[in-house]
């Protein structure tokens, strides 16, 4: 029994010392990442686990390469980043590359002499799918000292990096310590040392995780397992760090360095090497990350932003906004080359995401990560449009009748008129296509109406592609004087005026009393055509067509009413016939209706309908024609129920010309007339 206990204790101590108790299995990344004879240094995997950048080194060369996951999920063949590897003719060494959150920027350090104690931090942007020539970061990041191991926080606002630190307690290892610098208003702040115990005197390879709070690093510490070990520290607020915790399931007596975590896969990638790092081969390894060492959950939103019409990729801006304060958290951008974007959203938060491109619409939506249980990547594509359709309706403000009008569009800022394709889809209805990104003034005008318009501001946030607006136009009015007079006495006659707006087909009947001058004033719409009709008792009906005009119109008419008496003759001016025929034209019917109405009002009245011709043609012919014509009118009246005994008809041919001389076409036309004569009342 005792021996069993002793044996168990021995085994436990051995396992503890060897570090294999509670250890994880760390796998070396296979080909094509691991290449025989090459060191794989400082691997960095992107947050979504789809991209990896590292240094490939042998005794002859040291280059920075990147690899991407294939469709099958394995790492593809690493490709040299030529823009960086060949950016200078002088020999140089690249160290510790890392990506920004959406793999559009690379940060790395560069030194010209491996023995030199100076190195600087550079960055390279990816434009149109290609890495650009590196640019050295300015002061105060880079100094005469050794700056290396750069890593940008997911929001792009904090850069973590290291500077050399001479630690007498650590032998055979060039120690560094970790700094941070904030980027604000296009300027980097003075780098600040991370507080102890985050820094312990020999700390490096800071890699901020996607959650923006968990900083992975490598460190040589007294309590470590030997060599460089992996740790993580949590930044719980801007000011407060929790002491680093060793990732002891991965740490061994070897060197574990350059940890980077893919949140989506929950894996950690690292560089592993024998104790003497300088002389030994470095390899890239990975392992699953136990939850207690994992960063907080995140959502990586990515996709493609394109033009809705052409489907071409768009360079767009993706803003992450705090919905409560409407403050900008950070912005990401899509590449014009492929329209791809990627943003990282932290857990337990609400975001407003605003996607826009100059001259294009916006897509704005809210996204909550409050209930996420695991990190994941979500694909969302967006399309933006740069034109909108405006459906315009122009109508009369009083009667709401649609109005065909003149529509003009102006650039509100420049003031000039814009020629655009204006499509008339119906009476008073227009369709305009307007480019987004400008302010427009749109006006409608029509003769005799007050012009009107509105401002359409498309320079701001446009989210829909179709709008509808109405423009109401108010017609000017004209005071029109109508004299209603007895043609014999000249006195005013009170009548029931029937006013028909021929333009709008609106009929108004109004009883009017004339003033001392026998006049009455009515307010009529400027420019409309009106038929004024009266059929007062004791008088022949009278109608006339007027057109009130605010500009230059006379705006008055006298209706001289003929009293109904024996021998009164009334010319029925609107009664016309087909050429050489006694067939009534359809335009005669309104006048015939008035005549019918007159006879209905005066049922005992006896009339003679007479027809007259001009002086062209033979007497016999004209007589026959006029007789037939008078007969046509008579037939019409009888058909309408008038008493045939009260109506006679007679043709006078050319014997009674009324309008002289008859050598003008105008007078001839007027002489071709029909009259009504009252024979008795």
């Amino acid at each position, binding site marked *: *029994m005792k021996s*069993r*206990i002793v044996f*168990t*204790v021995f085994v436990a101590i051995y396992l*503890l010392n060897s570090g294999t*108790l*509670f250890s994880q299995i760390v796998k070396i990344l296979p080909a094509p990442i691991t290449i025989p004879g090459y060191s794989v240094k400082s691997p960095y995997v992107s947050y979504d686990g789809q991209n990896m950048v590292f240094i490939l080194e042998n005794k002859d060369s040291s280059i920075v390469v990147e690899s991407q996951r294939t469709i099958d999920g394995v790492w593809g063949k690493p490709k040299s980043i030529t823009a960086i590897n060949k950016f200078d003719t002088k020999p140089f060494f690249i160290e510790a590359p890392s990506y920004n959150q959406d793999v559009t920027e690379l940060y790395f350090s560069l030194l010209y002499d491996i023995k030199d104690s100076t190195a600087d931090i550079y960055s390279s942007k990816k434009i149109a799918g290609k890495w650009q020539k590196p640019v050295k970061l300015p002061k105060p990041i880079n100094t005469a000292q050794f700056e290396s191991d750069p890593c940008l926080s997911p929001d792009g606002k904090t850069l973590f990096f290291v500077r050399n630190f001479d630690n007498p307690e650590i032998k055979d290892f060039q120690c560094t310590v970790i700094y941070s610098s904030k980027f604000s208003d296009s300027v980097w702040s003075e780098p600040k040392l991370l*507080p*102890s*115990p*985050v820094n*312990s005197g020999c700390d490096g390879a800071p890699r901020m995780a996607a959650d923006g709070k968990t900083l992975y690093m490598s*460190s040589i*510490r*007294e*309590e*470590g397992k030997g060599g460089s070990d992996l740790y993580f520290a949590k930044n719980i*607020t801007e*000011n*407060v*760090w*929790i*002491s*680093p*915790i*060793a*990732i*002891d399931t991965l740490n061994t007596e070897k060197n574990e360095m350059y940890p980077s975590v893919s949140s989506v896969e929950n894996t950690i990638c690292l560089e592993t090497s024998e104790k003497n790092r300088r002389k030994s081969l470095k390899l890239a390894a990975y392992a699953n990350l136990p939850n*207690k*060492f994992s960063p907080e959950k995140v959502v990586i939103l990515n996709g493609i932003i394109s033009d809705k019409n052409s489907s071409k990729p768009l360079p767009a801006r993706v803003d992450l906004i705090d*919905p*409560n*304060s*409407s*403050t900008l958290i950070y912005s990401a951008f899509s590449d014009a080359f492929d329209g791809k974007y990627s943003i990282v959203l932290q857990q337990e938060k609400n975001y407003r995401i605003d996607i826009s491109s100059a001259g294009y619409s916006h897509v704005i939506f*809210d996204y909550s990560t409050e209930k996420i249980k695991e990190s994941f990547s979500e694909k969302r594509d967006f399309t933006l449009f740069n034109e909108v359709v405006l*459906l315009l309706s122009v*109508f009369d403000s009083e*009667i*709401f*009748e649609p109005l065909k009008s003149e529509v003009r569009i102006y650039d509100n800022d420049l003031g000039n008129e814009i020629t655009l394709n204006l499509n008339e889809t119906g009476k008073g*209805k227009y369709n305009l296509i307007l480019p987004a990104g400008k302010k427009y003034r749109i006006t409608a005008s029509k003769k005799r109406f007050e012009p009107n318009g*509105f401002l*359409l*501001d498309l320079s701001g946030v446009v*989210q*829909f592609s*179709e*709008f*509808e607006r109405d423009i109401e136009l108010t017609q000017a009015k004209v005071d029109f004087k109508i004299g209603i007079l007895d043609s014999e006495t000249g006195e005013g006659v009170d009548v029931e005026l029937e006013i028909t707006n021929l333009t*709008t087909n609106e009929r108004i009947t109004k009883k009017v009393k004339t003033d001392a001058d026998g006049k009455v004033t009515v307010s009529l719409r400027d420019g409309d055509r009106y038929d004024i009709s009266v059929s007062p008792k004791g008088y022949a009906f009278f109608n006339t067509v007027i057109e009130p005009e605010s500009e230059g119109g006379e705006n008055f008419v006298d209706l001289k009413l003929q009293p109904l008496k024996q021998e009164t003759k009334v010319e029925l001016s609107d009664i016309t016939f087909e*050429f*050489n*025929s006694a067939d009534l034209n*359809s335009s005669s019917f309104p006048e015939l209706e008035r005549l019918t109405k007159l006879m209905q009002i005066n049922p005992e009245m006896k009339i003679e309908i007479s027809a007259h011709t001009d002086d062209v043609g033979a007497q016999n012919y004209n007589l*026959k*024609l006029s007789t*037939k014509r008078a007969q046509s009118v008579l037939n019409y009246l009888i*058909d309408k129920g008038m008493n045939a005994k009260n109506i006679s008809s007679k043709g006078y041919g050319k014997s009674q010309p009324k309008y002289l001389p008859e050598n003008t076409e105008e007078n001839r036309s007027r002489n071709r007339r029909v009259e009504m004569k009252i024979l008795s009342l």
Partner: protein
Amino acid sequence: MNKFVIAFSAIFLALLISVSAEAQRKFKYKDIYEVILTGDKESSYTQLLAFQKQDPHFANTYFQLALIAKFWAQQYDPLTDFPMVEFFIYNTKLYLGLAKLKMLDESGRNREYYENAGIVPKKKKIQTEDILAFLDSNLVEIKNYEQNVTLISNYFNKSVEYYNNCVIIYKQVNADYNNIKDIYLGSEPELAEKLLKIKNDFDSTLLFFKNFSTAIVKYPILNYHQKYELKTIETYRLDGLTHSNFLKNEIVLWNYATWVNEINKIKSSQISANSKEISKINKIVVENLRMVADGNYSDERKPFSLDEKFIYRIEKYDNSSMLTELFRLNEALINFTIGTKSNYNNPSIDKIPFFKRARYFHDLVSKKKSVDSLNHIFEQKITSENIRKYTEFYQNNYSGRTGLKEYSFRQKINTESLMNSAYQNLQTFLFFDLKYKLSDTISVADKSLVSALTVLKPKTSFLKPKIGYITDVVENENKTKLNVGYYIEQNSQISAFVANSDSLGNITKIRSQKTNSNSSDKAVAACSFAGGYYVLLNSNEASQSKNVILVLDKSGNEIKRIKLEINEFPRLMKYDEINDNILCVFGGTNENDQNNLTIMNLNALDQSIVFQSKIAIKGQVFEVLKMDKNFFVFCNFTSYQLAEGSEIRSQAGNADSQTNIALFVFDGTGNLMQNTPYLSTQSYFGLKALKLSSNKINILGLKGEYLPGNLSELKNKPLFYSIVDAKATELFVNWHD
């Protein structure tokens, strides 16, 4: 065994605990205090937290943590980082409490670590009482800060939250309704709820903002002194969709309250008024439709007409409205139905002149066309989106979407049925009008005529059929008539007759016309003129045809004869009273010969020929009309040739009976200006053409093959009805191939 397990477990647990993931090192408080004195709060706080784990009972740890936490509590922006403010306030209170508690255990030790706090001791050195008093005052201070900042933050966040709600709900409304007019018309409870919520939330926004503004005056925070400006939502779906930044000193807020108020105002005034008017007008329309449909034949009914301004009022809020289409359809239906109830369509009334009926039918056909067109447009517009605009109205009056579809279909069937019935009536009227032309014999009901013919004919029984034919009848104003035709004698000789009848139809005078004993004479047509009648007479002897126009007085006595130098068989005669011209059409060598036509225009006074023109046609003429100065000649044809040699054939077939119709237009001098065939693969033939107006001609006929002589078979053939204009363009036809 148990002991082994216990031991193993104990060792395992010990290892587990000892294999701590924490990179702990031992801190010396003196070192930490050094860091505190540098003013590096971040490093200090981190190390203090670490030391606290190492020694949780050291009071100064909490003291220093409290000081830093309090500092940070007041550094963070409570409007943007309130959780951090809250966090550090909490920590401050916690650490102050813990410091106080641990202080009491220390009994005056470690007082050198309190010197950085600026405590003013009562005596020379800092005593515990001094520290405790300091802690208490800080606690009061932090609580006061907490109270104010919490209140301000609450007001601020509430204001923001309510405003954000407004934006979110407004966005939902924008997504649900494509345009503002749909909102005016929308009556869904969910919409009303959303509008109310927007308004209420906006009111809350302003209320809380007011509270915030008041609070921030009393307890200023940083440099905040926000004011807001209200902006009107002018364009739906453009304005009002963006959130506002409440941190700016000048905030622009969309005025959702005004927007909702405007909508409600329009809904309660114009939309409500429209709704009432719509229901009212609909009732009137439905009632009218019912009354007319159930009513008797009458010409007293006035046309029904909707006030156009009513339509405008609907369309102001409802572009391309389904509702206005429904009203227009119903208006057209009423007027069409009124039309079908006219006495002109009454088969019991036969005294109406045919040309008046023709004008009436043209009007009816136009109305039917209008109904069909409007019904089609209406049916296309029956969509859920359109129904939503007046859900209640459609549900109550038309049983919703299904009901509307059924209504449209039912009206289509109904109008077709009414129109077909009208066509049938028209056909009846047409046969009545053409009874003499179509009849194959003198009806034995014409007793007076039969009796009169008996006198002319050698004494034989006249009850046998086919004793003769009336070819034409001229009716005078006083209802007296002139009847012309021919009768067959017992020896099969054919003689023409001319008979006067009185207003009651009794023959008052009859005369026979025979050129000589061997001739076959037929009176083919007659017209009246001021002085009497013209009668066109054909005499055929030994296949030689002669034509003459008898000029008769009003009593039927012959005044003179006009000999015509043309030997073809006469088909038709028209008299132009105004120009005193007689127009005759001749064709074929005998009655059955359908080849070629000659049109002759003759001056009645001096018998001079105005013009004489030919048509190389295989067919018959059925009408000639004068349109303005031109002559329109209507023919049934199987083929005809044009001057340049081309031939036009009937598409119905080659047989004489498989005819189509053609129109030939001659000018006043007899030149052929235009020929227009109305082709069809089905046989049809014209019987009559009428001038409806200076620009419209109505052609009436029958569908099928032309087989003259069998009236009862003709009556089974469907009516052919078309309208052409003065350019011979077909405007309407009641059937197509």
